């Protein structure tokens, strides 16, 4: 067992047995060595399920929205990206800070579970693409930091190259590229449902009246859905890359999200979502100095 796992269990045990929290959100090991799915621990004897390894992809902050009526305090393990989601949810009044015990776990960067498929446990596995451009591996909000912070990786990730490639295309070429990507979408909504920025009480895609999104799977509806989502999470996306990881059709969703984030930064200045609780998202408030190029 690695030292990280030992520390996680120690703290979880202490928090549960002292009654400081009544629930711990963490990760566990299942039947596949390259997956570490979420686990909900409410009994001290179950803390032995907790683990930390390079496959702890899930952003557990997402579950806090399910638990708004949970009585008692909740401990939640957060990597750097996950912690930004916590700040975002706090800013949107989706969760209450006093109900959380946030345990920061500086993230060394995770491995790509798709690359591990078919391999023996312990085999060499590629780094996860979503972690390659991560500028915030260290939690930005926490009550306890479980181990030493990690250095920030500055290598150029494939998604950056893809954005550069898309930027160099003509509008028609770019349209053709995205048409091909969105034509694959099966509309399973895994991207939306895993996204911590998607916190609407009722998603417009689920509304029957008005029927914003038709149920037919065709390019037009798929484009409408994906573009609406990209614009809706603009400025609130914490770039955890979960949407792209879970897409069963491998649509490069982070290329859109990162591109939009960059456009917003150009217009409104650096404003990475969820870093600073006091700083409102640029599209979530009004400032007299906002650019008004379109006026």
């Amino acid at each position, binding site marked *: 067992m690695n030292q990280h796992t030992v520390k996680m269990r120690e703290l979880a045990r202490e928090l549960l047995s002292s009654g400081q929290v009544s629930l711990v959100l963490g990760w566990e090991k*299942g*039947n*596949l060595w390259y*997956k*570490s*799915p*979420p*686990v*909900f621990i409410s009994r001290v004897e179950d803390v032995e399920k907790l683990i930390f390894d390079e496959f702890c992809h*899930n952003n557990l902050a*997402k*579950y806090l929205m*399910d638990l708004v009526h949970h009585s008692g305090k909740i401990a939640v393990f957060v990597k750097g990206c996950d912690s930004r989601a916590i700040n975002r949810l706090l800013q949107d009044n989706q969760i209450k800070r006093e109900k959380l015990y946030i345990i920061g776990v500086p993230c060394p960067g995770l491995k790509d579970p798709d690359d591990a*498929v*078919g391999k023996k446990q312990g085999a060499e596995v590629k780094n996860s693409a979503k972690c390659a451009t991560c500028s915030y591996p260290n939690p930005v909000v926490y009550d306890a930091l479980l181990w030493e912070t990690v250095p920030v990786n500055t290598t150029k990730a494939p998604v950056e190259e893809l954005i550069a490639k898309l930027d160099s295309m003509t509008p028609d070429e770019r349209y053709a590229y995205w048409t091909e990507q969105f034509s*694959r979408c*099966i*509309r*399973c*909504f*895994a991207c*939306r*449902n*895993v996204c911590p920025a998607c916190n609407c009480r009722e998603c417009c895609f*689920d509304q*029957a009246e008005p029927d914003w999104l*038709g*149920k*037919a*799977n*065709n390019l037009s509806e798929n484009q409408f859905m994906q573009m609406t989502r990209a614009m809706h999470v603009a400025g609130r996306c914490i770039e955890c890359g*979960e949407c792209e*990881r*879970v897409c*069963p*059709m*491998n*649509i490069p969703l982070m290329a859109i999200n990162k591109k939009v984030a960059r456009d917003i930064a150009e217009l409104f200045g650096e404003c990475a979502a969820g870093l600073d609780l006091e700083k409102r998202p640029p599209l979530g408030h009004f400032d007299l100095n906002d650019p008004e190029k379109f006026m």
Partner: protein
Amino acid sequence: MKTIVKSRLAELLQTMAQDFRVLVPVKSETVSQFVPWQEGLTVNLEGNTVLPPKDIFFPQTEKMYKFKVKGSSVDIEEFAEDVQKQVIFGIRSCDMQSIDCLDKVFLTKGYEDTFYKTKRDKTLLVALACTKPQDTCFCESLGLNPLEASGADIQVYDLGDALGFVAKTPEGEELLAKYASLFTEVNAVPQKVEGFNLKAEVAGIPEKLAKMFDHPIWDEVSQKCLGCGACAYLCPTCHCFDISGNVKADQGYKFRCWDCCMFSEYTRMAGGHNPRPSKKERVRNRFMHKLYYFQERYGQLLCTGCGRCIAKCPVGMDITAIIEKIKEAEV
């Protein structure tokens, strides 16, 4: 056994494609699925496709009929569907079993679904035996034989450098006879498939679930589910659909499209009431349907052990682990 070297498979498919629409498993950079054969494609003989073949008979979106209001009456016209005779090549035992499930749903119990039937009736199934299980395969636990697909017209075996063909139905015999010149007769014994990573003990599960509707297990099992439809849309047996319309002024058309019991609007009624208000009820329904209701109605499980849901669930929901939990639960 009639065999053909793998390097000549393209030639066989190309010849077949002159007489049939031939669908083959193909892996691209982004996804693997069954697509119509065309020259230059590489057939993926390794592992199963990410997308199941169900959309060949049951497309995600399918137009049903068009209508036009004329005074107090309405003209209804069906969409003319030009269905060619088709061959699905390289379909695995698990997906063959899923076709058996779909056949039961769409063709039995007193109603035949025309949309499904027209395509199904014109299809010959050339199954491909597996050589080794993928990490998420557990068909063996469900009583399937990865070497022998039930319902196939022809069973194909991967013999290393060659593929062996054995006809299982008169239609299969006919198909092999048609292309006999391409095959060589060789004595060969297919290799056994061993080393399943996942197992599920399903004996007694449907009977036990009959008493577990109100069991606390569903609170626990549903907790981490995100309520997306990746499992259902990648499942070869999930077959729920919704009927919707596209209406402009006095005319329009009706279409049906895949639906998913994980979605909130799946059971939402006019007026807003939802008998499955939270993910607990939805998750319960999913597993009850797969492991109990379907068994009760059709005498078999609505799961084939293909493992696609396990491979792609964003939060690692694992039906084999859930079966284990059901088995251990106290009732």
